[in-house]
């Protein structure tokens, strides 16, 4: 399928709709030559699946971190007409609002380095992580409902985070229109014990330092303009609650697709007409999971602040530990975009992608031993990628082959030699997440900037990482 791509310029590739008869629109992939070289042919073929769905708007977008997934690639964006199109649980993904919060500090790398051997274990103990950790909060049914409807507002009222955090989170940490009556009892049961837990796999808490300030003006405006300034990045999602919501609607939308006679190019791409009851129910339920996840990250932000207070003997306010930004990776949003010269309401499905509207903070997580980036959304991304940028480096090796190729303990030693302290519940997760299992973040970010989707502001490198 790779040979079907037509080069438009150094960073954009067209996959014309005539490569497959069922495709309704073209697809477009963003990436430089290095990114294209690492791109799997099967992932490109999966992009064509999305282009076959009803009401899809040109183009289906593949971002530079795109890799083979189930049904569609991770790192894909697609938009559907809000009237005539579909909304899809499959295109949203199981970890609804898996995302990143970035927290600033005014500490220097030297100050933190001294305390690293104390800090990382303290964080590891304060943040329940891994499949084997029990949550610290057990919400009542009423509390859970409040979280689902009011998102981070619940957290702040209950002492987790402060009101200044709220406007620094996408959607102000709460999507309007979440309806808990659309949530199964099973999802609620799974959600109650898990608020304030990190999860496992590629979820992490990382202590970073600024290695390069690339856009001085913006960096200053955002308060992250000093080299060696320490930052914190928290990556996690909506836990068992969101997974169950996604699974419930996967099953429901399989039936809906049959009922409305929607042909599915892959069974995982179940969907319902956006304006059908099934479609509306999914959107209202998905918003509950989005709000749960925003709250999850803010609760953990509070505990991170507490750990820093204990380790450094100062208040978190003194250490300037404000939220820089919090954003979603897996989400469906009703947004207005210009389609064929006219403003139109569309359901944008971001699967492993971040929003990058003009001025948005775009947080891109690198792999465990490599750099991450804080970038700024550009106006031109609206017309190119429905205002979306990449979310990470993107895997090039399966978890299974990473485990076969690397040993967790060796990865840990290598990281230590690089000055990075890693602590995980299981050494295998370090092998799975080995930096060599991922694409080169520099090539990914060069592509995003070259394609004028988002501009690099600050590059950060890891100092320590906690993994589930």
């Amino acid at each position: 399928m790779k040979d079907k791509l037509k080069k438009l310029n150094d960073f954009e590739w067209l996959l014309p709709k005539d490569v497959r008869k069922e495709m309704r629109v073209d697809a477009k992939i963003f990436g430089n030559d290095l990114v294209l070289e690492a791109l799997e042919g099967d992932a490109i073929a999966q992009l064509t699946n999305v282009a076959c769905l009803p009401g899809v708007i040109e183009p289906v977008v593949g971002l530079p971190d795109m890799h083979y997934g189930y049904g569609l690639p991770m790192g894909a964006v697609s938009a559907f007409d809000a009237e005539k199109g579909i909304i899809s649980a499959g295109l949203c993904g199981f970890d609804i609002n898996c995302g990143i919060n970035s927290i600033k500090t005014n500490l220097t790398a030297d100050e933190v380095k001294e305390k690293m051997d104390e800090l990382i274990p303290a964080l590891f103990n304060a943040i329940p992580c891994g499949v084997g950790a029990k949550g610290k909060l057990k919400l009542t049914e009423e509390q859970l409902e409040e979280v689902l409807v009011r998102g981070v507002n619940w957290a702040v009222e209950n002492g987790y985070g402060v009101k200044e955090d709220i406007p620094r989170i996408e959607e102000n940490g709460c999507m309007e229109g979440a309806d808990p009556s659309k949530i199964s009892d099973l999802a609620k049961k799974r959600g109650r014990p898990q608020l304030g837990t990190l999860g496992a796999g590629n979820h992490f808490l990382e202590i970073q330092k600024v290695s390069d300030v690339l856009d001085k003006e913006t960096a200053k405006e955002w308060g992250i303009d000093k080299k060696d300034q320490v930052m914190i990045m928290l990556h996690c999602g909506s836990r068992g609650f969101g997974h169950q919501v996604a699974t419930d609607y996967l099953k429901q939308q399989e039936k809906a697709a049959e009922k409305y006679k929607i042909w599915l190019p892959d069974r995982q791409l179940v969907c319902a007409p956006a304006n059908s009851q099934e479609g509306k129910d999914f959107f209202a339920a998905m918003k509950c999971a989005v709000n749960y996840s925003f709250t999850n990250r803010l609760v953990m932000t509070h505990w991170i602040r507490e750990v820093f207070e204990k380790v450094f003997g100062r208040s978190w306010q003194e250490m300037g530990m404000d939220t820089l930004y919090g954003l979603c990776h897996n989400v469906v949003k009703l947004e207005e975009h210009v389609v064929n010269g006219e403003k139109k309401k569309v359901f944008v499905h971001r699967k492993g992608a971040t929003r990058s509207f003009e001025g948005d903070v775009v947080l891109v997580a690198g792999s465990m031993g490599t750099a991450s980036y804080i970038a700024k959304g550009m106006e031109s991304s609206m017309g190119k990628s429905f205002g979306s940028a990449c979310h990470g480096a993107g895997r090039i090796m399966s978890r299974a082959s990473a485990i076969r190729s690397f040993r967790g303990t060796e990865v840990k030693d290598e990281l230590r030699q690089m000055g990075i302290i890693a602590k995980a519940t299981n050494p295998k997760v370090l092998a799975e997440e080995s930096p060599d299992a991922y694409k080169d973040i520099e090539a990914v970010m060069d592509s995003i900037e070259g394609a004028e989707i988002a501009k690099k502001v600050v590059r950060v490198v890891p100092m320590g990482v906690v993994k589930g």
Partner: protein
Amino acid sequence: MKYKFIDEITSDVMFEAYGKTLKEIFENAAEALFTVICHDVEGEEVREVKVKGENIEDLMFNWLQELIAAVDIEEMFFGKFEILKISETELEAKIYGEPVSREKGETVVKSLTYHQYKFEKTENGFVARISCDI
């Protein structure tokens, strides 16, 4: 062979489970799933589960999904699975395990997916292909 892992999806996990009988394949699929979630689990505590499905393929999906949810709700790891009764649309089972612990945890399975999902009758019994989002 009870099950085999297949290196197919860049980010996730896929396996095939086998069984001469429905009872066997359902037990083997559960065992395969829990090698992804945890290790060396003792079966001291027991839970009973009843699962329904619209057909045998749906029953397998719901069975494994029920077990994934049970890890969160019961805060337990499971290591032994005993199907007591099974039809094309219903099953009853005893599942044996112990409270979750960081030491015995492997990773979170978020969900099963429909990606290349199949449940087939073969000459020797049954085969199921299952991919998990982790």
